[in-house]
């Protein structure tokens, strides 16, 4: 019996300890800029803009959206595709996306494909990134214009009918 108990305890520890370490309710912003919305909709008012890697606490999930609390104490909504479980690491040289990265994260950071790798790649290939940069810099269509576009075309506006 006591052996059984200790085995169960060991298994429980094996499961729970990593879960606690990883912090199951914490997620990181997985996009360059994430708009925290007042309501679970892309047409909702923005209450805070978060940047890549910032961590938020998940309060609950609802149809593809997460109700979250930011580090500054705001409570609002992020679409689940805007976040990723756990922490993200940063590429070296991207000063603007490094928020409070600890030493370990910085040590991990220079791995994989980074800005430095891209810069060397484009030089070696003699590749022109002008159009890629231009398209990326283009403003996204304003949500109000998008809603008007859908209405004018007799289309359905997502999230307005409770999808």
């Amino acid at each position: 019996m006591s052996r059984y108990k200790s085995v169960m305890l060991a298994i429980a520890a094996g499961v729970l300890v990593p879960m606690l370490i990883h912090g199951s309710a914490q997620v990181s912003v997985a996009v360059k800029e994430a708009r925290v919305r007042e309501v679970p909709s892309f047409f909702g008012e923005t209450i805070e803009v978060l940047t890549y890697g910032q961590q938020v606490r998940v309060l609950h999930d609802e149809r593809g959206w997460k109700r979250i609390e930011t580090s500054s104490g705001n409570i609002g909504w992020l679409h689940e595709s805007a976040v990723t479980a756990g922490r993200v690491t940063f590429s070296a040289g991207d000063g603007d996306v490094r928020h409070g990265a600890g030493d370990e994260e910085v040590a991990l950071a220079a791995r994989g494909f980074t800005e430095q790798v891209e810069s060397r790649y484009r030089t070696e290939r003699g590749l022109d990134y002008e159009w890629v940069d231009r398209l990326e810099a283009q403003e996204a269509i304003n949500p109000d214009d998008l809603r008007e576009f859908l209405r004018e075309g007799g289309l359905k506006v997502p999230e307005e009918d409770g999808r």
Partner: protein
Amino acid sequence: MTFSSSGKRAVGPRFGGLVVGAIVAGVFSVVVGCVAITRVGTGIGMATGHVDENQAAALERSAEAVERSFEDFTPEQEHYIGRAVGAEILSRYEPFDESKVNEYLNKIGQSLAMASDRPEIFAGYRFVVLDTDEVNAFASPNGLVMVTRGILRLTDSEDGVAAILAHEIGHIEHKHGLAAIRTSRVTAALTSAAITGVRVASSEEIAELTDIFENSIEDITSTLIDSGYSRGAEREADRAAVRMMQRLNYDPDALLALLEEMDAAFETKTIGLARTHPAPSRRIRVVERAMRDHPKPPAATQARQERYERLLGAI
């Protein structure tokens, strides 16, 4: 709207399965966690003089035995990969520099992306027309969708354009581009370099990573341009397209009509798409199945058809 299957499981009778699953997940996260911990550990150990280079290398070899998957790329790395794929395609095809046309395309495309299962991507979705008669469409992993004038001419409605764009967004949603990178390269990219204890990778490490990067981009572009995705990936993108269209009330019949047009165009073998896509007749059956049990949306309004004709009617 389903986002993950795990949330739907019945709790009671599956409890045993969940416990086993949790244990497996726990053990797995410990194993995966070890890779990072070992590598950081060796770096710090070397920097502080507690581990010599040989010991560090041995530690790393054991840690690196874990194979990595394309799912392990961070969103930022996916972004850099996508930018390179976009730059490669835009070096082969000239963009059609008409702002009104591209704005219209972005309104359709960004609406569809918003209705997809992955509305948020690192730097957002962008859409652009390529100035060529070739019938083709490309999606790069950073959310950039490029469609040729040739493929746009195969349809005569906004719903048809939506079908083309939604299919491409489907490839991005399912990360089909990243999946085209060989696993050996993914593992090498995610486990090499930056273990010397210094904060910034050395130029040799950057050079090594750039080689892996170049080969990875080549894996994707050769798939997009020459060999094509697997039939399974095309099916997934078609199903995703039907879903996005239904959520906005675009008529998925337009996707069927487009596939029929492509079928006819395939006969002549003049189009780029014929090299890289399964025969449209096979895809038609998949789309028909995905459309089953959904009511047909209301017919397109006059305003929708008018704006299409004004902006893309003469493409």
